[in-house]
């Protein structure tokens, strides 16, 4: 067994309440490497084709990564995978915090959950042991109350709790998994899957250690990282102001979605800047296990008479985009409350904000009225309306019951006119980066197996003139040597999108934070990643192996979708993007033409080794990656 892994995977059948431990061979660990790829191995093996995402046959996996638990920045990551109740394709979501490291300390690399419990339960893992406990007394409570109650009843104040909230219990299709009450596996509805299984929480406690093959090398890299933060400006800024540090930059290039993606610049942006958060409502900076960057926010404020508590953290850039500019809201206190409500109820802030924004556009255009909204003036720019709709969605009350289905299903109910206002790919709402400004990201939004995602490739500006030399030196290690002009889209940009997507796919497999370890601006680059993984595992891992691991995961995700009937016809951007953007700034008047996207897809599928007609992996490509066992 390679160092760093515990060698134990916990299997849970909630229907029969049976638990058992598997100890796979070392070859399995090297091939699937942890995180999302290891989870996908079980999802593909065990989930029947067309299984109900909210039924007992869906398999939910939770996996940490290879270096997770080591004393170095950016390694405490948890991947969640299952069939998505939003898209019907694969679901995939990543999170940080202390839970992922604690899972290893408790003696497990990952958990495979199947079946459906007849009654609410939680899973308690402690020092290699596992047990199911009743959660009936926790059902219906917000995350903060549940975490406190579990710690009290176990007499263990230091356990880590990963849980769904009331939204997951109510099967809101974009419900999240929350740990520490403020870290989210937010995307693709993994909270609804866990809620359908009546698994309220996974609680971990452990005194074990994760041992690296070369601990001195890990210590050396951590020390170098601490020194380098000052010399790595983008990471320094991330630490100072959190992910919200990029609000102003995003706005300047017309990439800040505004009024449901009708505009790319927001007139109220000055109220939403990361610097503003730091100088007003920020109480402290927080971190994930052993991370020196400290990008997480802890805020304290109030809005509309409701207190925003430090327990629930603070808003990320994506939350500011979705609840702020997307909805035309220029009130940071309201955004902070929206962030808190999503963490309390267990909701994905991106999908939730985007769905409210969609409903706002429907309201502005007469497809919804005050009767539908229960008297809420659901207009752009109304912060109280955002807060009210989050409450309705989490409880599935009034219009919230429809919006809890996600904007794509809501549009189908509201009629053909509503489709014009939809901003989804594969029924999954778009993050807050406008593809008119980041065109290669638009391609990734379209082709990504689990819907539009902003953390599945490097963004365009890192491969454009004007960037720092360190970006270009690192990207050259992936074979990217032709820096492009700002704002352009070329076949070379498609290559950039594909290769960086494969690299990011490896990060989500090995369990590495993409703000600390990455291909360009991050604290550590590709060479350091290879060094880390080698020192951690004792295997000699080079960049070629990292890319192979990344490609393997990407093909597994795509193969799952192929089994469910997805094709290149599903790799499309919202129809709205074929109409000219409104407003001011560099993207005003811009379109993302569907015909252009079809060309980029041709180039992309060729690079991926996929069938250009179906857009799916070929048998030969799967065999190259050791995935011949997947039947399409």
């Amino acid at each position: 067994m390679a160092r760093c892994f515990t060698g134990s995977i916990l299997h849970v059948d909630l229907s029969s309440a049976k638990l058992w431990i598997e100890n796979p061979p070392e070859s399995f660990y090297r091939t699937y490497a942890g995180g999302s790829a290891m989870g996908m191995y079980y999802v593909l093996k065990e989930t029947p084709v067309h299984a109900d995402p909210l039924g007992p046959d869906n398999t939910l996996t939770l996996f940490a990564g290879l270096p997770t638990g080591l004393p170095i920045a950016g390694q405490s990551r948890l991947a969640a995978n299952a069939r998505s109740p939003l898209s019907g394709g694969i679901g995939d979501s990543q999170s940080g915090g202390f839970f992922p490291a604690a899972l290893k300390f408790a003696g497990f690399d990952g958990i495979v959950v199947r079946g459906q419990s007849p009654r609410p339960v939680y899973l308690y893992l402690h020092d290699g042991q596992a047990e199911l406990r009743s959660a009936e007394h926790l059902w219906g409570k917000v995350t903060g109350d549940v975490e406190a109650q579990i710690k009290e009843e176990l007499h263990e104040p230091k356990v880590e709790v990963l849980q769904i909230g009331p939204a997951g219990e109510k099967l809101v299709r974009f419900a999240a998994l929350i740990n520490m009450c403020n870290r989210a596996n937010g995307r693709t509805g993994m909270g609804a899957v866990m809620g359908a299984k009546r698994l309220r929480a996974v609680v971990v406690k452990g005194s074990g250690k994760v041992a690296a093959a070369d601990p001195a090398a890990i210590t050396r890299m951590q020390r170098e990282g601490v020194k380098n933060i000052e010399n790595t400006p983008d990471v320094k800024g991330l630490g100072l102001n959190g992910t919200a540090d990029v609000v102003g930059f995003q706005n300047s290039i017309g990439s800040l979605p505004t009024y449901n993606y009708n505009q790319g610049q927001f007139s109220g942006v000055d109220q939403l800047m990361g610097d503003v958060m730091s100088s007003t409502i920020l109480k402290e900076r927080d971190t994930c296990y052993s991370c020196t960057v400290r990008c997480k926010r802890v805020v304290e404020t109030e809005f509309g008479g409701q207190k925003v508590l430090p327990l629930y953290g603070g808003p990320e850039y994506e939350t500011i985009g979705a609840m702020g500019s997307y909805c035309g809201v220029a009130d940071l206190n309201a955004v902070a409350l929206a962030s808190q409500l999503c963490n309390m109820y267990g909701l994905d802030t991106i999908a939730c904000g985007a769905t409210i924004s969609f409903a706002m556009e429907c309201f502005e255009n007469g497809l919804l009225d005050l009767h539908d909204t229960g008297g809420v003036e659901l207009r752009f720019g109304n912060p109280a309306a955002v807060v009210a709709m989050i409450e309705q969605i989490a409880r599935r009350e009034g219009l919230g019951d429809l919006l809890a289905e996600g904007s794509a299903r809501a549009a189908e109910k509201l009629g053909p006119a509503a489709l014009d206002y939809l901003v989804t790919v594969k029924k999954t709402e778009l993050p807050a980066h406008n593809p008119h400004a980041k065109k290669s990201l638009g391609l990734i939004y379209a082709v990504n197996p689990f819907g539009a995602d902003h953390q599945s490739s490097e963004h365009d500006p890192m491969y454009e003139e004007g960037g720092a030399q360190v970006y270009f030196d690192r990207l050259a290690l992936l074979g990217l040597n032709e820096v492009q002009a700002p704002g352009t889209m070329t076949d070379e940009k498609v290559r950039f999108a594909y290769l960086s997507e494969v690299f990011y796919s490896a990060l989500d497999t090995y369990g590495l934070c993409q703000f600390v370890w990455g291909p360009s601006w991050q604290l550590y680059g590709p060479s350091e990643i290879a060094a880390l993984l080698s020192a951690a595992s004792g295997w000699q891992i080079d960049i070629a192996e990292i890319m192979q691991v990344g490609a393997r995961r990407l093909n597994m995700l795509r193969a799952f979708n192929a089994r469910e009937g997805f094709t290149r016809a599903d790799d499309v951007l919202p129809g709205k993007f074929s109409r000219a953007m409104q407003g001011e700034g560099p993207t005003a008047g811009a379109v993302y033409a569907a015909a252009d996207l079809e060309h980029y897809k041709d180039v992309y599928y060729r690079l991926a080794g996929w069938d250009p007609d179906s857009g799916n992996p070929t048998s030969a490509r799967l065999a190259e990656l050791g995935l011949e066992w997947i039947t399409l």
Partner: protein
Amino acid sequence: MRIRVILYSYLRENLPADTNGRAELDLPEGSPAGLIFEQLRLPRQVAWAVNGEAQHNFHLILHDGDEVRVFRQGAGG
């Protein structure tokens, strides 16, 4: 001519703390944007905008009353 400059993120360290990252610069008519980066000793591997629009050309001629904002790059998330 007077040019308003607003710095964000770690770039604020290039101005006194009590300025909150803001400065009004008196520059000769016809000055290029690059002059601001020289005067404030700002790195050039950053993102910057004039009157709200991203720019890349440091030879861009500024005009009286222009507002220049300088940001760090990065992807967000």
